[in-house]
């Protein structure tokens, strides 16, 4: 009965339903945590943060570890959580320096290419690719080919996420 819109693609209907299930489960949990009467700005903000994290986590979990970006996102969420628990910045700084090193290697490599070929196009392209790397989770450690592939998948998942969240928000605003 479930409509398979793009069977050759992500199979969005099953991604959608996996995400919906997880996200609703997380929302139920968040809803049960704080009493309704507490509406201090700080608590509102915390609830908003929790919901946002739940949305990202649910999406990354629904993709599982099949994608580099979802693995990177889950890693980031986990390490942020444990950083807050144990207040250890060692792990994140090690990871950051690894990322920075690989990024510097890539940037210098790409700069070499830029010098050998003419045209503003190349410069613009590299600049845009760098911007994209910052937006896609785990992008800074990817080569160009992977980056583009991961970006396409990430966009599809983001649109699913937005679609589901919109429906839920609409549902509960009635």
């Amino acid at each position, binding site marked *: 009965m479930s409509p398979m819109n793009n069977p050759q693609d992500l199979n969005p209907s099953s991604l959608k*339903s996996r995400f919906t299930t997880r996200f609703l489960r997380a929302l139920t949990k968040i809803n049960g945590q704080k009493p309704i009467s507490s509406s201090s700005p700080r608590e509102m903000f915390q609830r908003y943060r929790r919901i946002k994290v739940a949305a990202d986590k649910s999406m990354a979990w629904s993709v599982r570890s099949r994608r580099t970006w979802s693995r990177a996102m889950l890693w980031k969420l986990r390490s942020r959580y444990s950083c807050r628990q144990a207040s250890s910045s060692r792990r994140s700084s090690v990871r950051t320096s690894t990322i920075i090193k690989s990024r510097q290697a890539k940037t210098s490599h790409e700069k070499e290419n830029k010098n050998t070929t003419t045209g503003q*196009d190349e410069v613009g392209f590299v600049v845009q690719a760098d911007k994209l790397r910052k937006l896609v989770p785990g992008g800074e450690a990817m080569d160009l080919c992977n980056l583009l592939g991961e970006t396409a998948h990430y966009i599809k998942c983001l649109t699913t996420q*937005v679609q589901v969240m919109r429906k*839920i928000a609409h549902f509960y605003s009635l």
Partner: protein
Amino acid sequence: MSSQGSRASNKITDDELNSLILKLQTLLPQLNQGRNGRASATKVLNETCCYIRKLQKEVDDLSERLSQRLGSVDITSFDAEILKGLLQQ
């Protein structure tokens, strides 16, 4: 995209790059409307960045909306079934 690249020595050929860029372009609503030609790679990447930022911001806004709404409702398992049904459409 002009194939100036004698970057064939690298990991990615121009053809592969072109097809990946084209694939991205099909996902972008603003570039895909009625444009049969292919936009330049740089433009596609630029639009991609803008689109991702827009989507991420929308997730943020929706999270905020939900946090305001949910304070005062209960989510039942019945709701979950209805929602999943709605989303299948």
